[in-house]
């Protein structure tokens, strides 16, 4: 009996040991796996978990405003809203569409079709809804107590003045992205100041991207962009654009540019180009990239007789001639084997320097430049800023095209033709800046379009006018001004009683392959007023007028109308009735 007890006890004990060993082994395996996942692969699994759980949502910064000198907004950010739906979460698309269709101004059937698209995780109903519509959609969402409707805010750049100063401003394309690009104009050249810095919200979120308030989180508030205040006056800009459009229509021209500048500071008061464009974003509008370039700074042209102002300034400043010096005009002159003749093929006999400008004699200009010699002539041309960028704070500025002695393609004949503005290409901003130097006592101003940078009303940076080089003496500037006043006084289509105007017109042929176009011209006029205390200088450039090619016929009346309005707007009193028609 006892022996069988012991045998039973022995087999039980064995079974117990086996069970115990299996349990131990199992526990060891479990512990080993736990150690593997929790210790050895801890970092990797934590990263995966955080990637799913932690979100980093960017908060876009609003781009800074662009304002004119009086604080009127020319460019600012606003919001537009994308309305979207998740069809799989919509139980009653017809019912929802009934409430939503009038809000979105959409056809109900079209909306039902979109809301029923359960094959799509999400459908966009409206891409660019205004604020009022977004608020109404949020009310519908609340009424239906549904998470199947979503409203996503995105920035949009708005230009309330539409096409006013479009080339000077440039534009921005947001396209509902945090990152974006700025193109042309002030938008591009001051992009880093205007852009600001996006913020972010980082923390834990559950599967519906709703934040989990406990746990680590961080909010970095966005820093909105800085505001840019221009030197532009929007009223003067509008005057310039209206007159440009009127002149182009009146004379059947193709395009044109008007620039108005304060000659003492170089501040640009207006910069108008035609044709323009509306920079407000429009998705369906076809885009012609050529229209975005600013011809006022990027496009060079042969200035024609306006350039005689520079040639005369150089001649007076070097002392080779005085105001009353005369020369004998034979109607033609050979320079470097190149025959140069007056515009009307006439000979004028004994002519004073003032009459040289008044009759716009090419022979006279070539006579001056040959007497100066190439070294002095081109030295003055470069001193007046030609052949190099003016440094205006706009992108894509052209330096023009000028051949000088030493260049492989310079010819002696260029000395003659350059003297009256042919064979040399300049930009409108270079031309007006050079004439502004004469108005500014011989000091070349630095053109600029931005006055200051602000943030929340505080001035961050102010751009003071930088005095440029003294290119001609103040006395020569005064003499030349009197000469220009005298020649302008004779113009029947420029009558500003009580005001002296100093200006020069130009009619330049347009180069084509192999020579010049037989009939197309660029008609221009550059002038400043009041001549003895100039408050503005205006350049009018009209391309290919068909009804008359002449600058004195096409461009001068535009200046007259602009000057009339500027004198009133700026409150400039008449000062010299003794001059009569000047």
């Amino acid at each position, binding site marked *: 009996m006892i022996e069988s007890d012991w045998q039973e006890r022995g087999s039980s004990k064995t079974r117990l040991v086996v069970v115990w060993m299996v349990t131990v082994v199992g526990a060891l395996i479990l512990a080993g796996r736990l150690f593997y996942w929790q210790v050895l692969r801890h970092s990797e699994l934590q990263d995966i978990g955080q990637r799913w759980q932690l979100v980093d949502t960017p*908060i876009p910064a609003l781009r800074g405003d662009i304002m004119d000198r009086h604080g009127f907004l020319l460019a*600012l950010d606003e919001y537009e809203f994308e309305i979207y739906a998740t069809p799989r979460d919509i139980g009653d698309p017809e019912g929802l569409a009934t409430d939503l269709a009038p809000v979105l101004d959409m056809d109900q059937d079209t909306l039902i079709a979109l809301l029923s698209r359960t094959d799509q995780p999400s459908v966009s109903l409206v891409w660019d809804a205004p604020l009022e519509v977004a608020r109404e959609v949020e009310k519908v969402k609340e009424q239906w107590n549904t998470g199947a409707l979503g409203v996503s805010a995105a920035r949009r750049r708005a230009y309330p*003045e539409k096409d006013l100063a479009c080339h000077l401003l440039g534009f921005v394309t947001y396209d509902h992205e945090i990152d974006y690009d700025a193109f042309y104009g002030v938008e591009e050249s001051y992009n880093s100041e205007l852009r600001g810095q996006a913020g972010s919200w980082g923390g834990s979120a559950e599967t519906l991207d709703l934040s989990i308030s406990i746990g680590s989180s961080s909010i970095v508030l966005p820093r909105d962009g800085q505001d840019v205040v221009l030197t532009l006056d929007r009223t003067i800009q509008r005057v310039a654009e209206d007159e440009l459009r009127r002149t182009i229509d009146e004379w059947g021209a193709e395009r044109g540019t008007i620039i108005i500048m304060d000659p003492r500071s170089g501040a640009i008061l207006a910069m108008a180009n035609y044709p323009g464009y509306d920079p407000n974003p429009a998705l369906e509008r076809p885009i012609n990239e050529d229209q975005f370039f600013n011809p006022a700074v990027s496009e060079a042209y042969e200035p024609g007789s306006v350039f005689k102002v520079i040639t005369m300034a150089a001649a007076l400043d070097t002392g080779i001639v005085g105001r009353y010096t005369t020369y004998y005009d034979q109607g033609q002159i050979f320079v470097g084997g190149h025959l140069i003749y007056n515009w009307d093929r006439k000979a004028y006999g004994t002519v004073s320097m003032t009459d040289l400008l008044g009759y716009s004699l090419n022979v006279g200009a070539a006579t001056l430049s040959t007497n100066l010699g190439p070294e002095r002539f081109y030295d003055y041309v470069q001193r007046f800023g030609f052949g190099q960028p003016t440094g205006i704070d706009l992108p894509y500025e052209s330096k023009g095209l000028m051949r000088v002695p030493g260049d492989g393609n310079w010819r002696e004949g260029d000395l003659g033709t350059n003297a009256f503005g042919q064979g040399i290409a300049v930009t409108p901003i270079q031309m007006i800046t050079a004439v502004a130097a004469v108005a500014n006592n011989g000091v070349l101003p630095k053109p600029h379009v931005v006055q200051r940078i602000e943030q929340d009303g505080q001035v961050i940076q102010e751009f003071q006018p930088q005095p440029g080089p003294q290119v001609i003496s103040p006395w020569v500037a005064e003499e030349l001004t009197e000469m220009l006043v005298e020649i302008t006084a004779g113009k029947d289509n420029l009558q500003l009683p009580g005001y002296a105007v100093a200006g020069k017109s130009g009619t330049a042929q347009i180069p084509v392959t192999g020579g010049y176009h037989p009939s197309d011209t660029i008609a221009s006029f550059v002038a400043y007023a009041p001549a003895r205390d100039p408050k503005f200088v205006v350049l009018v450039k009209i391309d290919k007028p068909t009804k008359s090619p002449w600058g004195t016929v096409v461009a001068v009346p535009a200046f007259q109308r602009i000057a009339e309005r500027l004198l009133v707007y*700026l409150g400039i*009193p008449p000062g010299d009735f003794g001059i009569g028609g000047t």
Partner: protein
Amino acid sequence: METDPIFIPRSTIGSRIGRYSAWGLSGKTLGLLLLLLVLGSLIGSFYLNQASQTTAAGLEITQLTREREYWRQENAHLRKRIAEREALPSIRARAEELGFVQPEVVEYLVVESPVDPDTSAGGLTPPHPAQRDLPKPHTPGSQEWWRELVAQFVSWMSSGH
């Protein structure tokens, strides 16, 4: 062979071994456990309190962030509406509605009073009515008031009242 059970006197039991609870734990141990329980409860409730405050603060921050964004959107919308109303096309349209026309002929009239000499285009601001100081209304001094009162009295006396 049966043996008698060991008899240990009560007093000996108490003095040598100590008092035991019904679960076989001494009072000291029990007290320690109780203390640990109380401390644990305190720490636990402190943690829960902090967690709930953090959660509430987190919810409030989320709510405030949403509210901030809401008002930024409203503000941007208002600024744009104001800018559109101030824009020259709107002003021109409104002027035309009111019957204004653009002058074609400008005539200058010479007047005697001097004009503001600051006419530099670079720093010019168009004349703004709000910037001109209005003349202060005349406030009579006390002497003047007395004189007026006396004059009124004399006038009243001389009228026979």
